[in-house]
């Protein structure tokens, strides 16, 4: 449930206002806000938990760099919230751990040999890095 102190809106140029649903609760936002901005307006922090330790995170860079704004949007997991314009009726919930499935992390596999089973994503080892 949204419980953090929300970001506040200054007087803005006129535009349309739309309603999104953050964890099921209606929130009025400005047309043009990103899904990550909507989360900050609603006070949904943390907005995701990490894969490794389950610790809470929230949008950090707002420019597509850090991937801390991953959200579940309209049922799709791991959507980069700051790069996703919000639209009327959008359902946004926090992203819980699940490493992947929609936007796939191929960062360590070659496209030519793209492993379409997402294998390198699911077999996360908890190895001791000093070994």
């Amino acid at each position, binding site marked *: 449930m949204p*419980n*953090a*102190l*929300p*970001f*506040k*809106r*200054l*007087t*803005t*140029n006129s*535009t349309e206002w739309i309603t999104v649903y953050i964890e099921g609760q209606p929130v009025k*936002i*400005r047309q*043009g*806000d*990103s899904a990550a*901005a909507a989360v*900050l*307006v609603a*006070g949904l*922090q*943390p*907005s995701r938990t*990490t894969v*490794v*330790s389950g*610790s*809470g*995170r*929230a*949008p*950090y*860079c*707002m*420019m*597509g*760099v*850090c*991937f*801390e704004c*991953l959200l579940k949007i309209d049922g799709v997991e*791991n959507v980069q919230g700051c*790069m996703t*314009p919000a639209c009327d009726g959008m359902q946004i919930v926090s992203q819980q751990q699940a490493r992947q499935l*929609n*936007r*796939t*992390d*191929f*960062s*360590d*596999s*070659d*496209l030519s040999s793209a492993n*379409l089973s997402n294998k390198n994503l699911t077999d*996360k080892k908890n190895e001791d*890095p*000093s*070994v």
Partner: protein
Amino acid sequence: MNIPVYDLVIIGAGPAGMSAAATASSHGLKIVILDEQTAPGGQIYRSISNPAIADENILGADYYHGRSLLTAMRYANVDYLPGSIVWAVSPDLSISFSRAGKSSQIKAKKLLIATGAQERPVPFPGWTLPGVLTCGAAQILLKSSGLTPAAPLILAGSGPLLLLIAAQLNRAGVEIEAILDTTPKGRYLKSLRYLPAALRNLPLLIKGVGLLVELKRSGIRYVNNVSQLKALPGSNQLLSKLQYSVDNRIETSSCTTLLVHQGVVPNVQLTRALQLEHQWDELQQCWKPSLDSWGESSQAGIFVAGDSGGIAGARAAEYMGELTAQRIAQQLGKLNKESLLKQTAKAGRLLYQQQAIRPFLDAMYQPADEFLKPSDETLVCRCEEVTAGQIRGMVAQGCTGPNQTKAFSRAGMGPCQGRLCGLTVAQIIADERKVPVKDVGYYKIRSPIKPLTIGEIADLAE
């Protein structure tokens, strides 16, 4: 499959991309801009086509200067494709990108990378807590949504953007608890030798001083010589306190939002993936692609302009975009060498003036060591949760570079693909091995440089 061919493909619609497009179109080139954002402007002129804030005094005239670039781009004959994520570029300049969930390919005769800067990662204990954001993030929220952070609010770090966002928030009536300046002692002296050159850009220096005066008059508590930042959580996993040291005293302040900043660095994800030659910039403490004076990279036909080629600021990016576009037009036979030199003389002079101030700013605001080589307990890889201590441990075990520590710890392997740990990991390894950072290198970046769905890849096969 028929692949559209363009004379010039520009990636990014910030100042460099916008001005390059306008210039190139004056030569009749067939141009397309692929932009990650939903509207032109890049980060510096974000939402300039539809600014959120009603009161234009808040962001100031420098922001609205972006309108002139926007107008020039609109009059130009350019295909603009917003919301396009480039994920691969092949050596023959075929470019794969996805847009609205669909993948496509185009071919370029010349490619201009104008992907701008990202903020330098600012690792310190607790920087991953919800409530800690970058100053750039706060500025983006202001520009595109008119949103201001929850109070109590503290700003901590070093550099011109820190001062600018503080002034903008203050003008917007946002209460700022404190500005904690982490610029190390002695920097003013060190940067003095670069001051004479900086005087060539007197207007910018005067603006900087103006910002400092504005902040001073505002009465906001301004603390110098701050070090040892540590963000502490409350019972709910959120940021609740900031601990820091000043004059060997440890202080603690309550805060809900902490905005951090340690300057910006070139966004090298794409230039790295293309395996262009890069060099280490010692003064700016970052990597940048090696370019000739026209912005052409080590691979003929691929150009880089603006901050992605080395940090010089928005105005410099604008002039560099123009220069580069002229050069490209010349290479494509649209003008001869002589008119090239004539037509670029003015932009060249303006660029030189912009660049003259950089060494002074870079020397003054070089981040303190604690942010370049953070303490053992600090997470350096936010995605895979690897600490500085773990990286040091791996070096002790014989790891000599970032690709090895990556293989052992997954640092750099998460969704951000090393964007937020690449610099730090390399600097820690260099420091432990007592060798220059350039000998340690950087992550090997492979395509796709942005995560993709399987469907998007499949599109290409059709």
